[in-house]
């Protein structure tokens, strides 16, 4: 009896000892005098490699600075960032997505207000309005945009030419139907426009803005459109599906998790256009074995607001809890403005938002002409920044649900519009009372 008690005690003591030894080891040795910065971002190999190279260049010039790179894929980046922000363990320099700006800003001042950093970061190269519209809430600028991205049409030029459709048109919604029907006549298996669910949502938002002239949800938590407006949009979507202008949802929804570069139907040349961000262009060009060209997103002649979506590719922020805000700012300044940094980073974070950077890359012939053109043809038709409610994630899921209801023909456009407005008003009341 006693023997076994002893043995179990020994096991327990051993366990606790191991715990304390290993635990003790984790307490790091006293830090050297060097300044250590942490920089977290998401991206692909090309972005990782370019950023690591830039960091290396910077730390060579500033030997007292050490920059820890914390990079990964996009899918779960937000979850990790939220956890770290909650634990006050987030990096010093943090890359964020423009869709998170409002949610993060409502959590208190997590990031250094860039409007107060102009003495440390040269911001003359940025379009002031773009920064204020897209990276700020009120006067509080959370971060600086790395690049400019726009929503446009990416075309399979080989197929378009074959079917006798001219890509260089002043696209509007009627022309989409017209050319879509033409393509169906050319080949019953081909569809003019491929969209993921989220792009049906963008289409809905843009069309509503073009009809009403404002964001689809007002700042005072009311809907900015009438039932007729919404029925028009839903009927248009239904018409596109019925006429085969777009592929049936049953065929496309399963690829919602990827983009055309992962969709066999696109790669096999079944679709003529994909509505997407300019930042996606390189990936699609790389994966497609046919010619790719770009066109502006549809804008009707009588639009009250051209309504096209323009956004920062990503936003670079400085953590308010950082111990070395000045050193971080110095790096951010170098990152955006130094010619060497620009030539190293190139367009791995979208078409650079800093004017000088665009010029340098253009001169060195390091930008794809199509990316530049896509942004150039879209910017004059920009609908400006969207307000917080129009970017709200819960609102987005409600709209997407009803797009599916219409697209899968479970509800008529009228019924779907009714129900959706009811659900939206309900959610808006909830959001308002939570304020």
């Amino acid at each position, binding site marked *: 009896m006693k023997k076994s008690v002893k043995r179990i005690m020994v096991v327990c003591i051993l*366990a606790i000892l191991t715990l304390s030894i290993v635990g003790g080891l984790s307490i790091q040795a006293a830090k050297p005098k060097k300044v250590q910065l942490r920089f977290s971002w998401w991206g*692909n190999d090309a972005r990782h490699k370019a950023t690591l190279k830039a960091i290396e260049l910077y730390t060579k010039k500033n030997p007292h600075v050490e920059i820890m790179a914390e990079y990964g894929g996009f899918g779960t980046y937000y979850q990790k960032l939220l956890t770290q922000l909650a634990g006050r363990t987030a990096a010093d320099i943090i890359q964020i997505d423009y869709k998170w700006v409002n949610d993060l800003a409502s959590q208190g001042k997590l990031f250094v207000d860039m409007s107060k950093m102009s003495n440390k970061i040269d911001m003359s190269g940025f379009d002031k309005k773009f920064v204020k519209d897209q990276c700020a809430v009120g006067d509080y600028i959370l971060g600086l945009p790395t690049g400019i991205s726009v929503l446009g049409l990416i075309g399979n030029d080989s197929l378009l030419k074959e079917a006798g459709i001219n890509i260089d048109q002043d696209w509007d919604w009627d022309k989409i139907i017209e050319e879509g029907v033409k393509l169906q006549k050319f080949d019953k298996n081909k569809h003019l426009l491929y969209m993921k669910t989220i792009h049906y949502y963008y289409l809905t938002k843009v069309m509503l803005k073009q009809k009403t002239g404002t964001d689809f949800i007002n700042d005072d938590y009311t809907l900015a459109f009438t039932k007729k407006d919404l029925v028009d949009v839903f009927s248009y979507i239904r018409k596109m599906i019925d006429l085969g202008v777009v592929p049936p949802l049953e065929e496309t929804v399963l690829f919602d998790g990827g983009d055309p570069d992962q969709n066999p139907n696109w*790669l096999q040349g079944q679709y003529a256009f994909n509505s997407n961000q300019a930042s996606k262009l390189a990936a699609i060009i790389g994966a497609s074995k046919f010619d790719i060209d770009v066109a502006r997103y549809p804008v009707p002649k009588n639009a009250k607001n051209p309504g096209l979506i323009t956004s920062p590719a990503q936003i670079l922020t400085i953590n308010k809890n950082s111990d070395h805000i000045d050193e971080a700012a110095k790096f951010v300044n170098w990152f955006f403005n130094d010619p060497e940094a620009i030539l190293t980073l190139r367009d791995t974070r979208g078409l650079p938002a800093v004017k000088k950077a665009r010029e340098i890359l253009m001169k060195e012939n390091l930008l794809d002409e199509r990316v530049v053109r896509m942004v150039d043809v879209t910017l004059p038709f920009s609908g400006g920044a969207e307000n917080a409610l129009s970017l709200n994630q819960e609102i987005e899921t409600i709209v997407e649900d009803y797009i599916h209801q219409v697209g899968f023909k479970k509800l008529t456009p009228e019924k779907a519009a009714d129900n959706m407005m009811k659900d939206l008003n309900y959610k808006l009341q909830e959001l308002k009372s939570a304020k």
Partner: protein
Amino acid sequence: MRVIFKMKVAKINLHKVWVYLFLTLLGVVMVYPLLWLFASSIKPNQDIFLSMGLIPSKVVLDSYIKGWQGTGQYTYGVFFWNTFKMVVPTVAFTLISSVLVAYGFARFDFPLKKILFTLMLSTLMLPESVIIIPRYMLFRDLNWLDSYLPFTIPALFGTFSFFIFMLVQFIRGIPRELDESAFIDGCNSFDILVKIILPLSKPALFSAGIFQFIWRWNDFFNVLVYINSVSKYTLSLALRMSIDITQSVEWNQIMAMSVVTMIPPILVFFFAQKYFVEGIATTGLKG
């Protein structure tokens, strides 16, 4: 006599042929995804999403070399070593602690046993998503972030209820008379555990070890949250480290590294399986 015997042999063989045919056909279905994974890893990047076929239009092998290099900062060699450093102690600690606790639950009748057992099981029933944040704070306060301690130390303290419950079920299948006669022969409870329960639980222990090895090997969400430094990334993090929705992804390299990553779990399974299916000496059990 002889004829009948021969017929019987023939019948058995025919029967076996059917079994093999069935196993092989179903096996193809089971393993097709892996074949596809392998085929994708030697296809040119453009071809992967173009067709479902297994035969590449052109064989590309540099996906393995380039994939192994990763982003150039750390190779997959580092990620492999990290994964072993995290997984091996966790598996060992899980087995040790789970066996002790399972033995306690299965063989002794102490006060509050039912409540404690229910509590133990209930830890499996609250979704991870809502425990992540408080657990993160706990490990932050212990100063364990960016290390493997959040994986290894809890394992030492029986926090994997799945394995405790599993071993309880197996130990309960071992006849109690064996313990009792050993006790009469002068063994104490720890001797019984070592001399009787452990040898007879070999299949269960090996299954538990295999499961835990593979699950920890593939674990993504926990590692994502606790590990910051790329130098400490495990394979599951490394495999997703370059997947960005808006950018081009070198899929063939990711597929190549997925294949390489799966080799250790497959080998572990292949070589450990004989223990979980052949570990028991049946004689003397019901003595």
